[in-house]
């Protein structure tokens, strides 16, 4: 393992290497969250109070950050998985693998940023309005909120 990590660290990979490394990392992260999900569902029947506490943690700031990380891992793994699938089924697409990877990042952020905003809504809606004019002059929080509603993501 030490030898392998040493080789990984000494070789300067390009897009393909990064795509693969993130795929592995996101895969392990998704697996860890699946285990966590199995545990919390078990608690719903086994210990309802502990389950309520866990739900309260999910709604807290660290819990929401974890949720964003889970979403990011799922989204990256799915998009890069599609990229690999396309390359596997149509080997001639190998010449476009870098463009496809950058394209998957565009989709990642296009879907991920609104998703993260929705998850973190309780933490930015009011404070943002307070910060920019005390709720009177500029309602940036409200504008963002309206934008999310208008585009159908909220």
């Amino acid at each position, binding site marked *: 393992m030490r030898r*392998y990590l040493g*080789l990984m660290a000494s*070789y300067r*990979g390009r897009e393909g290497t990064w795509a693969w490394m993130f795929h592995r990392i996101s895969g392990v992260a998704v697996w860890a969250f699946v285990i966590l999900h199995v545990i919390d569902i078990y608690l719903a029947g086994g210990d309802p109070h502990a389950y309520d506490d866990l739900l309260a943690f999910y709604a807290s700031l660290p819990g929401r950050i974890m949720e964003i990380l889970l979403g990011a891992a799922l989204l990256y793994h799915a998009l890069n998985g599609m990229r690999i699938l396309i390359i596997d089924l149509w080997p001639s697409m190998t010449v476009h*693998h870098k463009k496809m990877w950058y394209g998957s990042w565009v989709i990642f952020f296009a879907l991920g940023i609104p998703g993260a905003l929705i998850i973190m809504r309780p933490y930015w809606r009011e404070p943002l309005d307070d910060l920019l004019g005390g709720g009177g002059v500029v309602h940036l929080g409200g504008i963002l909120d309206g934008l999310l509603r208008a585009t159908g993501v909220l």
Partner: protein
Amino acid sequence: MQVRLRILRYDPERDSKPHWEQYTVECEPTAPLLDLLHTVKWQQDGSLTFRRSCAHGVCGSDAMLINGRNRLACKIRVDQLGSRISVAPLPGLKVIKDLVVDMDEFFAKYRSVQPFQVDDGVMPARERRQSPEDRARYDDTTKCILCAACTSSCPSFWAQDTYVGPAAIVNAHRFIFDTRDAGSDERLEILSDADGVWRCRTIFNCTDACPRGINITRAILEVSSAIVERGI
């Protein structure tokens, strides 16, 4: 220009482990890295050991890890690398001395895929003809010079050294898709093994490292597809 050249040195008779040594070399920006290695060996330290033969990117004997990527020392120029250059032996292969690695296992894997035309047993009355289209089918993989830059850049090979590796698959591809060959199914059988094509994780290090510009990942995937399509 002046180049600071760091070389990972290892002499099994003196060193317990590899160590970096630094040399300062004067050269033209257009000089190939191989010229710098020659300058070090001929003018500064005669004990420096490395392989080279044709010095023109054809024999494939001077592949090494240059600034973190596998390349041929005779093909890469100083102006493509900068004034600070690091050189190490090919990663993942046993080092014999300095920049010389043991290629025995690499060539054993190459031989394992039967990289030669297999006759169908029927002697034709004239030469075996092939259309330009059929010849083009495997043109890319005829370019391999067996430098091992691809195989030794592959993380799957680093993790599992029994993996046959990209170079062997490229050379199998060259014959599998040759209409004159009769040994394709046997080669595909060999490559459908656990240490065959399925170890590829489409990381593209091999394709990026190939000094001949072969689309190695595509070749591997075409061999994988052939295994599935022919039900092997």
